[in-house]
């Protein structure tokens, strides 16, 4: 997987028998993931839900290449993952913007770091408009609201047009209205080039609203205890009967943990 990943490439993520054990500092071994399996195909949005400590975030860090598994096979587009790469984007929980860069420069960071900014600077403006940040380009992170920071963080990742995007509770710190608005924006940007999205969330409505598949995990070690295919057409109606029905089913699965 090199530069200019062909749009025709069918992106694919495979996790087989992944084991990740942590040392918690008191000499205890914590099994975050134990023989964890997951396969995701091109253009799919998959949500991982489960209680704290079920290894959801650990899994995202492994796929991002920020951490390595002790055992198992982790492959993206049939290549083993052994470090971070811009084709596997990551949206952090707390937006994690660079405070010394303006909104514009935060979004342009990836292009500049890869030396593509001169060629494709119009993309920055395009993304800014797509997530509704016009007029805020020159503000610094301390000057913007949590919602705007979240949008900037999404734009910073999506501008790279990665084949795979990892979202680690990106909207958990936002109020309900902002969250719903940004969920629609995520779908809007996703529809442009249909990357794989792996979303970790505590919000079941969010998971059902966004995903093609919701995976419910058990705590320590993380094991799949429920899997729901969601075929409802988008945009989805949060109050429709079938939506509420799926939501209830997911809730029930979590309840039995």
């Amino acid at each position, binding site marked *: 997987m090199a530069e200019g990943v062909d749009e025709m490439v069918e992106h694919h993520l495979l996790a087989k028998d992944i084991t990740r054990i942590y040392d918690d500092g008191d000499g205890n071994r914590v099994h975050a993931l134990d023989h964890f399996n997951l396969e995701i195909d091109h253009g799919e949005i998959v949500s991982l839900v489960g209680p704290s400590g079920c290894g959801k975030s650990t899994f995202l860090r492994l796929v991002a290449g920020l951490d390595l598994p002790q055992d198992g096979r982790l492959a993206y587009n049939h290549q083993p993952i052994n470090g971070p790469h*811009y084709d596997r984007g990551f949206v952090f929980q707390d937006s994690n913007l660079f405070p010394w860069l303006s909104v514009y420069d935060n979004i342009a960071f990836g292009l500049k*770091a890869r030396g593509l900014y001169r060629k494709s600077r119009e993309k920055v403006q395009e993304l800014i408009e797509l997530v509704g940040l016009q007029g805020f380009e020159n503000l610094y992170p301390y000057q913007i609201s949590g919602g705007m920071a979240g949008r900037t963080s999404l734009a910073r990742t999506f501008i*790279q047009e990665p084949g795979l995007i990892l979202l680690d509770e990106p909207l958990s710190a936002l109020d309900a209205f902002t969250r719903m608005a940004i969920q629609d924006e995520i779908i809007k940007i996703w529809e442009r080039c249909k990357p794989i999205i792996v979303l970790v969330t505590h919000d079941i409505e969010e998971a059902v609203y966004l995903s093609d598949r919701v995976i419910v995990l058990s705590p320590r070690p993380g094991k799949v205890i429920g899997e729901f295919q969601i075929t409802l057409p988008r945009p989805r109606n949060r109050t429709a009967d079938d939506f509420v029905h799926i939501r209830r089913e997911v809730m029930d699965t979590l309840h039995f943990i």
Partner: protein
Amino acid sequence: MDDNAVSNINDIFISKKKTRKIVSIKELLLLLLPPVVMLIALYIHMVLPNVYPPGYKPTVYPVFLKLCIGIYLLFMIMAGFTPRLRERMLYLVGLFTVSFILIEALDIATLKTGRLLLPFVPSPDKIIASFTGNVGKVTESFVASMKLLFIGLFFGTVTGFISGILIGWSKHCNYWFSPVLKIVGPVPSAAWLPIAVVLFPTNHAASIFLIALSVWFPLTVTLSSAIKNTNKSWIEAARILGASEWYILFHVAVPAALPSAFIGMFMGLGASFTALIVAEMLGVKAGLGWYITWAQAWGEYARIFSTVIVFSIVFFSLISLLFKLRDHLLKWQKGSMKW
């Protein structure tokens, strides 16, 4: 109806805050306080006889007071048109007033009564005269000092940035150079003086070394430790966005460490002033520190006082300049730093 109410409220607020052009009586009286005190000082100075030292004829102090009154009144007229200047002056009124009371008190304690004895405490007139009478020499010394200081600051800052980045980023550099930093750095420049003279081909180079050293040390320490402790999640974010190690160093680690680097630079600037005075002991022919040492040898305390005043103005300006630079470069930080 509602719109009217809103605009009325706005009018009230705006008229209170911005558009008020007329100065109130109270403000006017406050603003007039310093020139009144200056006038009283001038009056006391003219009326009381000069008794100490016998036969001394003051020349410049009355001129100085009149000049101050003139300049102040000029500012007051300008303040009538610029509300911001007015605010500033109203804020400073107290300090101005007390300063001139103290200056006149010194005048009374020395020239008018002889309570404080020469040569150690000269009268304001003598201090000002020692400055105005030696403008050429003082300027020459000022230029020489600034030249030395700036060359030293330049080398100290450049090498401080280089070594700070190297020690902070590279494990090898950290292993080999941080002991050097820890051994060489904490030694005050005065202690280096005899060694520097031997090590460097000229005294000028040794002086520059001493000043540079005093900036280099705190800058390197603060910068390298800030780079070592760069927030891990920024580095991870940059890595995922496709940044190389070099790009991360110069576009993440260094900008993130800049606030700490400025703290080091402030410390270094303070230390460099001391180093400057020490460095000017190395056979220079002009310089403010040299001038003070020279004046002391002759028992010319008036010159010492006036040079110290020049020193404080110069150093105050340099520190203010660094604060301005900091506020400009770190405008991404919430709030600016005041001193």
